[in-house]
């Protein structure tokens, strides 16, 4: 890829990016969130088209207008969260869209099994091609995903965070497979946030920052701290610098003791004071989101205690958490946070409907008439306070931009007057202006005495907003540090890598 540039609207995402990947090479692509990795890879896969620049495969100019073009030219992508169909067998998935036909029309299932078996064998994986996908473990899914990419016999393979959901042993065997593929002459683009792995597997490294290539160098010629410095060289946005977070020495409001939930939360303990912003950092798969889901009653809690105001809570479903004053701005706002077809107003009021029932009708519970005047007042007030833009309270939220949708999710919780607000990646997919507004809002809420748990994969965001930062790894707290003790973004990034 040569001189690739790309803008979305007025925002420039990539500027003059060069990336060359050779046969038999593992080329790591690094960069923080928003550095442009995803966009660059989407251009290579034909999802987006570059505004300028060219793509060459085996020295030949190519022009991709759809993902199909890219696949036909031998570019295969291994997705983070899989493109497999759970109800089909392993073999059917592996040969999907490359099926051989027997007698001209019918699919040749036996040929599919043989072919799948051969591919799985080649990479030294022992999975029965006849098993159904839904019966396999996450690690096995990852391996089948690789086999599927190989079935396309593509010379170029893109792997996006392939180890995020794997254990250490599984990661080790994945690396053996990657090494084999490399020896077979494949060109591999490897995207990961785990620098340790990158040093183990990659031959060369390209670092992107703010849509430009900072450097391409052989892995042997660079140290980890140099890499981190290259990745984080961004300036803290101007407005965020003024939010001097400070430590609060209040009584703990929330205390979590030895929390276990599923495979990803394995004994997490921490405290949270009133008016404190607790940042939660950790690489993908560290248990960040699962911690939030357990506290909010979405995932079942296996053991451990959650104590709020000295009272032990029993949280079995979101309703319990909400009643206790713990609310969650979830990771996926479109799926989990909002009813997209409904108006801003009805989304804001949804969790508060019980309280909005007319005084006399309270005993009727849900059957009581909702006081629409009061509801309108609550919604309008929050609409104005959070400066939600793009319509009125009667506009369906699906018409809003990502950032304004996120504000609606926050507004619906503020309407319930919560004590603990958990935000899981609140600024993902949000434009830079609204991002700053959201961070400012978090500080302001803390200033009013709300306690906040901010989960984020953006170090800058954590540094700007948090009073204290927990670093998670493998479902446990590895570090619990005051914000003031962290000198720079690089220092936090190093902590993340150390915890790895």
């Amino acid at each position, binding site marked *: 890829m040569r001189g690739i540039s790309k803008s*979305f*609207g*007025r*925002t420039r995402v990539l500027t003059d990016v060069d990336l060359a990947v050779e046969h038999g090479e593992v080329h790591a692509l690094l960069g923080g969130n*928003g550095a442009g990795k*995803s*966009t660059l890879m989407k251009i290579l896969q034909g999802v*987006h088209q570059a505004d300028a620049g060219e793509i060459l495969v085996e020295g030949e100019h190519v022009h991709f207008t759809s993902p199909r073009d890219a696949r036909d030219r031998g570019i295969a992508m291994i*997705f*983070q*969260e*899989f493109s497999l169909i759970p109800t089909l067998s392993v073999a059917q998935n592996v040969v999907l869209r490359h099926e051989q036909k027997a007698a001209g029309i019918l699919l040749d299932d036996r040929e599919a099994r043989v072919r799948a078996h051969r591919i799985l064998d080649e990479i030294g994986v022992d999975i029965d091609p006849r098993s159904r996908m839904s019966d396999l473990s*996450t690690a096995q*899914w990852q391996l089948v995903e690789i086999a599927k990419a190989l079935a396309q016999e593509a010379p170029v393979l893109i792997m*996006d965070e392939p180890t995020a959901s794997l254990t250490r042993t599984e990661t080790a065997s994945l690396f053996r497979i990657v090494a084999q593929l490399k020896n077979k002459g494949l060109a591999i683009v490897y995207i990961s946030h785990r620098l340790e792995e990158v040093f183990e597997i990659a031959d060369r490294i390209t670092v992107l920052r703010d849509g430009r290539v900072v450097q391409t160098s052989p892995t042997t010629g660079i140290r980890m701290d140099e890499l981190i410095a290259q990745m984080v060289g961004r300036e803290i946005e101007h407005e965020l610098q003024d939010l001097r977070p400070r430590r609060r020495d209040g009584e703990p409001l929330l205390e979590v003791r030895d929390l276990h939930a599923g495979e990803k939360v394995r004994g997490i303990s921490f405290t949270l004071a009133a008016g404190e912003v607790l940042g939660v950092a950790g690489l*993908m798969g560290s248990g960040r989101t699962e911690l939030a889901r357990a506290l*909010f009653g*979405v995932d079942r809690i296996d053991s451990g205690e959650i104590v709020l105001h000295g009272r032990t809570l029993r949280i079995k*479903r*979101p*309703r319990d958490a*909400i009643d206790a004053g713990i609310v*969650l701005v*979830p*990771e*996926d706002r479109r*799926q*989990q*946070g909002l*009813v*997209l*077809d*409904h108006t801003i107003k*009805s989304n804001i009021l*949804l*969790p508060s*409907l*019980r309280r909005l*029932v007319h005084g006399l009708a309270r005993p009727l*519970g*849900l*059957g*009581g*008439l*909702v006081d*629409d005047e009061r509801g309108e007042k609550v919604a309008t007030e929050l609409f104005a306070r959070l400066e939600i*833009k*793009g*319509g*009125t309270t*009667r*506009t369906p939220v699906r*018409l809003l*931009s*990502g950032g*304004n949708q996120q504000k609606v999710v926050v507004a619906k919780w503020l309407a319930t007057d919560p004590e603990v607000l958990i935000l899981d990646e609140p600024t*993902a*997919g*949000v*434009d830079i202006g609204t991002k700053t507004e959201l961070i400012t809002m978090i500080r302001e809420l803390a200033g009013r005495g709300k306690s906040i748990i901010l989960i984020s994969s953006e170090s800058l965001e954590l540094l700007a907003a948090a009073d204290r930062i927990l670093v998670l790894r493998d479902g446990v707290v590895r570090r619990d540090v005051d914000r003031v003790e962290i000198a720079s973004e690089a220092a936090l990034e190093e902590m993340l890598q150390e915890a790895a």
Partner: protein
Amino acid sequence: MSTPTQARAEREDSPAQFGAPVRFLPYFDWRQYVIYIVFAVIFAVFAVTLSKDGFLNHQNLLQIVEQTAMVSVEATAMTFVIAAAEIDLSIGSVAGLASVVTALALGKFGLGLGILAGIGVGVGAGVVNGGLVTVLRIPSFLVTLGMLGVAEGVARWVTNESAEPVTNGSFIQVFGGGSIGTVSGLVVWTLVVVAAGAVVLRKTAFGRQVFATGGNRIAAEYSGVSTQRIKFAVLLLSGLAAALAGMLYAGRLQSGRFDWGSGDELSAIAATILGGTSLFGGGGSVVGALFGSLMIGLINNGLILAGFGVSQQEVIQGVIIIFAVALGRRK
């Protein structure tokens, strides 16, 4: 297998965040009102072309409302069910069973227990449907399809497929056979049920939670809505409405028979969808469903007056329903 991480990866650098539409006018979705427009147009056409055949006759118009009363009652509950993104295919045969059981109980135990028995059929069907959907997590389509067979089978069985006469005068007076002045009891029942349904769906916390459950079950659950209870409640309501419809059949036809109400599920679903309720849940209007039900009656009535036979009526009715739904669909 969870997908949020992929969703996040896709959002990163996503162009969707730019150029979102800015609207300064309050959002107005005219499709919700299609039913009223279509209703008015058809009414006007019949009024002009069939005026000599007595279409606009006071009695003829009231008759349309009477004939559609049972479907209107059923469609009111169906609006709740579909708004919650569920379906109930069993209402027609539950109505038939309720008519049979009521007729039998009236004969044996008198008025009070007769009415209770009819209501009991609705509660029973609703609890079984709702329980299987929420506890065993079987899709309502399958559960209620099974219930359709079970209810009809029981009704045939206990009566040997014959009609069971209803002779209790006060029952007939209250349920469908009587009238207040010149207004038939069926019209009163329709108005009362539709009005109550409209208020509950629009104005109560329960109604709003029904919409949220159908609009996005996960987001509703994450907002503290007990979506399983909501599903149970709407299926229970639907069973009750079917039983009421069954008793109205029993009163109007002065008998209980397994095939009273047969096929009502399709009419009620059509009326609900015509009324602007999304087949995928999340929104809906009880008043719209009433007009959907009336429109079906209107078309039948007009076609009869125009001299079409039953088979032609069915064809024309089907075409009009598809046309109206196509007009009202989004994108």
